[in-house]
């Protein structure tokens, strides 16, 4: 015990010695100030870097890198198969990307708290709110960072398929001309994924300063929502069509298949709701979550 405290005292003494203040003067800053726009840009960019683990320890890069690799491997395998079979096995976008939803959810659940929970946990908000950032602008910048990253993560496998399909074709130019119609669904599905996942995970993360709780809450919401939706359908009389849309795994799969003009046996048996119903529902969920996020951050005491 005595030894331990002796060690600590010695270390403390060493630290104080090493940090002597030197007189190096102070200069005024007379240069340009970008104001609110510069601050917004800086906060967004720092958010994107944090989410992707750029400039941070290896541990912080693990989740984004794993998710990107795991979601893009099936796309590569599918392209290889299509290439080897000389186009006998068509590339199916929807069927390929739908099962990756769990990975996208994992990404959002793990990374959204890096921004929203950590800012509260480390108490940097008072430092931000006394600068050129209002609370609303803070939410906008942080959300935009998260959305951008989630959009990119969801886009990556689809874009890989799209470019790969052109690449492996015997006549790339002709294939490119034929595939004009596919880039729209690629972008739409990625936007939709990013919109819902970024907004919901941001809201849940802003509710707690503990990263682990926020991650668990996002995953739990995703996992139990299927049960909740079918419960609502039976008890509260939620319309069957809407219930189909709100089932996270099935709903996402059906939307993805429909967007790319693909089909499944279940869809042939019971025709799914129209694409616009999916888009409106997901749009609404995202918007609600953003409204909740803004409300929450406005009320945070700093």
């Amino acid at each position, binding site marked *: 015990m005595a030894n331990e405290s002796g060690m600590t005292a010695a270390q403390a003494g060493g*630290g104080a010695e090493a*940090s002597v*203040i030197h007189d190096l003067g*102070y200069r005024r800053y007379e240069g340009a100030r970008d104001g609110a726009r510069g601050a917004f840009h800086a906060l967004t960019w720092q958010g994107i870097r944090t989410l992707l683990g750029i400039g941070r320890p290896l541990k912080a890069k693990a989740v984004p890198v794993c998710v990107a690799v795991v979601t893009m491997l099936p796309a590569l395998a599918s392209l290889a198969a299509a290439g080897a079979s000389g186009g006998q096995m068509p590339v199916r976008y929807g069927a390929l990307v739908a099962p990756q939803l769990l990975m996208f959810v994992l990404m959002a659940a793990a990374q959204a708290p890096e921004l929203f929970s950590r800012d509260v946990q480390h*108490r940097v908000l*008072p*430092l931000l709110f*006394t600068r*050129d950032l209002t609370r609303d602008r803070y939410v906008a910048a942080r959300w935009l960072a998260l959305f951008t990253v989630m959009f990119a993560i969801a886009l990556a496998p689809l874009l890989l398929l799209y470019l790969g399909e052109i690449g492996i074709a015997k006549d790339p130019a002709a294939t490119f001309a034929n595939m004009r119609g596919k880039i729209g669904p690629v972008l739409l599905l990625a936007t939709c994924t990013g919109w819902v996942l970024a907004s919901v995970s941001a809201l849940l993360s802003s509710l707690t300063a503990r990263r682990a709780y926020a991650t668990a809450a996002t995953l739990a919401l995703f996992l139990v929502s299927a049960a909740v939706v079918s419960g609502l359908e039976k008890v509260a009389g939620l319309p069957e069509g809407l219930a189909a849309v709100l089932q996270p795994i099935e709903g996402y799969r059906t939307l993805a298949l429909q967007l790319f003009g693909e089909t499944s046996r279940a869809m042939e048996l019971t025709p799914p709701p129209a694409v616009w119903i999916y888009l409106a529902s997901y749009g609404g969920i995202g918007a609600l979550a953003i409204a909740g996020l803004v409300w929450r951050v406005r009320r945070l005491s700093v």
Partner: protein
Amino acid sequence: MSPPLIQTSELTRRYGAVTSLDALSVVIEPGITGLVGANGAGKSTLAKILLGLVSPSSGSASVMGHDVVQGRAQIRALVGYMPEHDCLPPDMSATEFVAFLARCSGLPATAARERAAEVLRHVGLFEERYRPMGGYSTGMAQRVKLAQALVHDPRILILDEPTNGLDPAGRDEMLALVARTGHEFGISVLVSSHLLGELERICERIVLIEQGRLRRVASVGSLTEATGTLVVELDRDAATLQHFAQLLSARGLTARLERHHVLVEVPAGDVPAGDVPAHDGTVPTGHHAPAEYAVYDAVRDVALSMDAGILRLERRRGQLAELFHGQ
């Protein structure tokens, strides 16, 4: 006439049933101002209202003529804030963090990096600034907190308990840094602390608040000049210190024991050196010396006669505290 640095009028802030600030009206002029009060006296609340983080329940406040509610945007560029609590993300380096906050104050990327390096050097952080801040000592963390408050070149610094958690040496360094920032760079400082003693060393003015009310505003210089108390600490136990004080008293000095040190009153002005006899009984005659020197000599001689080592010998200006307590 330019508006006062900080002005509050009937400023009140309630948190539910708790009144944190109670009709506080005070004018703070440029320079270094100390804000003193016990924990919970309303120091942090006042700082947060001036920064626009908290809105007043009633009354008004302005910073350099800008109202804290309407003029928030203008105030932000003028004010640097060092909060009381920890605010450093552990996995970021100090350079990265301070540059990031500079950009959040609107500085362009290159200027932000340059300013960050400059202010970190200024607060005395060198190679450590590239390491993650999670491993910093309290002293280093406090320096980074001060650096981030300075990085956008504010006109006013609001420092909430900057010496919190520091050891005596760290405290002295932090206070010296705050004093330099205020005196040499022309940045006005509002520094809060629950320790009056440390503030009166660096502040030109002290604002004392108690339970959210203004108790008193006093200028430091006019009150604590000329006279003083000498603090002497020896490497001996209390009994020896008591004996030491008695020996000093026997030499005609006013000395008393206080906890682990002896306080010796230093008379004002010049006295003939001969008035304080040396320990061998001879009375030196001739020239006049400042009274202070004679007291120092006496302390040294008595300690020598007891074969005791002097650990600390320091002028203390304890006048202001007595003045406040006397109210």
